[in-house]
C-alpha cells in the first residue's frame, strides 16, 4: 500500500495498537479483502472509507473476532486475533466497544437493561453501581430519560445513541463504529458525529470508524484509510485525505472533497 503521494505507509515505530497485515477474506467465490494492510496508532480515530462491497465492515468484524481471515494477520496490541483462545478473545472483547449499523439492541430488553447486560454478565458490580454507570452513559449520549423504553419505542437516532452508550458502558480501550450515520438525517448525523468526537477526546480511546460520509470523517477522524477492491490504496491524515490526488479517491469523493 502507498499513501496518496505514492510513498510507503507511515513508519512502523509509532505506538501501533491495531494492525492489518496482508489480510485476505472471501465468501465463496466473492473475494472481499485482497491483501488489506494498515495500522492504527493508540489514541487515534481512524476512518475507513470506500465504496459499497469494498470490505469496510468485513474488516471491522475481523478486529473483534466475528470473522476470521483466510490469510494474513489482524493484530491487536501485537497479538493475532485469530490465534487467541476463547477466553483470551472474550477478555479482549471486554476491552472493546462495537457500535452496530442498526444498533443491534436486544429488542425484548429495555434500554437500561441493554446497557446493563455486559456488566451484569461479566462483572461483579452490584445493582446500584450498574444503575449509576447506566445513568451516566445515557446522560453522556444525551438521552437520560430513555432508560425505561424498549428499542421498538425509540427513533433510529436514539437507537444509535443507545448502541453507542452500550459500547461505552465497559469503558473500552478500542471503539469500533460500523456506519454510525447510516439511515440518519443530516441534523441527527451531525449530533452523532459531535458526540463521537467528544467521546474520542474525553476517553482518549482508539477508534475505527467505517463510514462513507465526508462530514463524519471530517468531524471525527484523525486519519483515513480508503479501500478499493479489498485493498487500502490511501492512508493519510484527514486534512490531506480531503484534498485528494489519487484518481479513484477523487472519483469517489466527488464535489464533497472540494467543500
Amino acid at each position, binding site marked *: 500500500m502507498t499513501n496518496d503521494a505514492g510513498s510507503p505507509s507511515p513508519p512502523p515505530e509509532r505506538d501501533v495498537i491495531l494492525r492489518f497485515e496482508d489480510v485476505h477474506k472471501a465468501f465463496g467465490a466473492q473475494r472481499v479483502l485482497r491483501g488489506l494492510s494498515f495500522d492504527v496508532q493508540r489514541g487515534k480515530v481512524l476512518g475507513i472509507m470506500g465504496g459499497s462491497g469494498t470490505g469496510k465492515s468485513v474488516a471491522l468484524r475481523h478486529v473483534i473476532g466475528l470473522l476470521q481471515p483466510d490469510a494474513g494477520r489482524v493484530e491487536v496490541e501485537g497479538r493475532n486475533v485469530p490465534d487467541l483462545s476463547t477466553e483470551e478473545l472474550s477478555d479482549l472483547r471486554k476491552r472493546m466497544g462495537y457500535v452496530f449499523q*442498526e444498533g443491534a439492541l*436486544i429488542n425484548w430488553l429495555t434500554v437500561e437493561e441493554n446497557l446493563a447486560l455486559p456488566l451484569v454478565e*461479566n462483572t461483579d458490580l452490584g445493582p446500584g453501581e450498574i444503575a449509576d454507570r447506566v445513568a451516566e452513559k445515557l446522560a453522556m449520549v444525551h438521552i437520560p430519560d430513555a432508560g425505561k423504553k424498549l428499542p421498538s419505542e425509540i427513533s433510529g437516532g436514539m437507537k444509535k445513541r443507545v448502541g453507542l452508550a452500550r459500547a461505552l458502558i465497559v469503558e473500552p480501550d478500542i471503539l469500533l463504529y460500523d456506519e454510525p450515520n447510516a439511515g440518519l438525517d443530516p441534523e441527527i448525523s451531525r449530533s452523532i458525529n459531535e458526540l463521537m468526537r467528544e467521546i474520542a477526546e474525553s476517553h482518549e480511546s482508539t477508534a475505527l470508524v467505517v463510514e462513507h460520509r465526508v462530514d463524519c470523517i471530517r468531524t471525527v477522524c484523525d486519519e483515513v484509510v480508503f479501500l478499493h477492491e479489498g485493498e487500502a490504496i490511501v492512508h493519510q491524515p484527514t486534512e490531506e485525505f480531503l484534498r485528494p490526488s489519487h484518481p479513484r479517491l477523487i472519483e469517489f469523493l466527488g464535489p464533497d472533497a472540494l467543500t
Partner: protein
Amino acid sequence: MTPPDHILAASPGWLADALPFAFAASLVYVLLQAAWFRASVVEMGSTLELAAATALRLHHLPRRSRWLMEQLFAAGVRNLHVVLLVGLFMGMIVSLQTGIELSRFGQQDQIGTIVAASMTREMGPFITSVVLAATTGSALAAELGTMSVSDELSALEVMSVDRTSFLVVPRVAALMIIAPVLTVLCDTIGIVGGGFVASSQLGVPLAQYTETALDALQEKGALIPVPMDVYSGLFKSIIFGGLIAIISCASGLVARGGALGVGRATSRAVRDSIIAVIVANYFLTWFLYR
C-alpha cells in the same frame, strides 16, 4: 450422460427419446439429495452440539429465572386453549372411532379403557408436542432467527455474553417443564371428551365409562406411585419438549439472509421438531413398554 445402448435399443421410440432426460433428471435429483443429506448431517451436528452446550449450562438456570418465567408463560398460558381444544376433540374422535367398531361386537363398555390408555400413552404427549412445535417452536425459531439477521446475536458475542446460557437454557428448560403439565391437561380433557361421546352417542353410561377409564390407569409404575401409562406419557413429553426447544433454537441461531432466512428457519424448526418427536416416540415406546 446417456443410457447404455442395449437399453435404448430395447425401448420403444418415445421412451428412447425420453430416457436421456430421465437419466439426467435422476442424476440431478441424486446430487440434490446428496447435498441435502450433507446439509442435514451438518445441521444435526450443530443441533447436537447445542444440546450438549445447553446441558452443560443448566446450572445457570437460577440466574435466568426471569426469562424462564416469561418462557413458561409464553409456552404454557398462551397455548393452553389450543391444547385443551385439540385434546378434547382427539378424545372424542378416539371414543367415536373405537366405539363404533366395538359396538359391532357388543364391547362398547371397553371404550373408557381404550380412550384412557391411548390418551395417556400416545395421544396426549404427541398432540401436546405437535401443538408446542407449531406454536412455541416456530416462535422460538423466528425470535432467535430475527436476532441473528439483525446482528443482535453478534452484539451478544461482542459483549462476551454466552448466548447459549442467556437465550437457549431458559427456553429449553421452560419447554421441558411446561410440556408435561400441558400433557396432563390434554390427557384429562381428552378422556372427558371421550366420555361425553361414549355416553351421548354410543349409549355407554358415564359411570361405567369412568370406571373402565380409571381401571385402565391402575397399573403403577416401577419407579414412582403414578399410573404407568401416565408417567410414561409424561416422561415422553419432557423429552419431546426438550427436543422441540433445542431444534427450534438451533434453527433460529443459524438463520441467515434477512426475512427469507427467518421464514426458512421457522418452517425447518417445525418440520424437524415433528419428525424428531415421531422418531423419538417410537424408541421411547420401545424402551418403556418392551
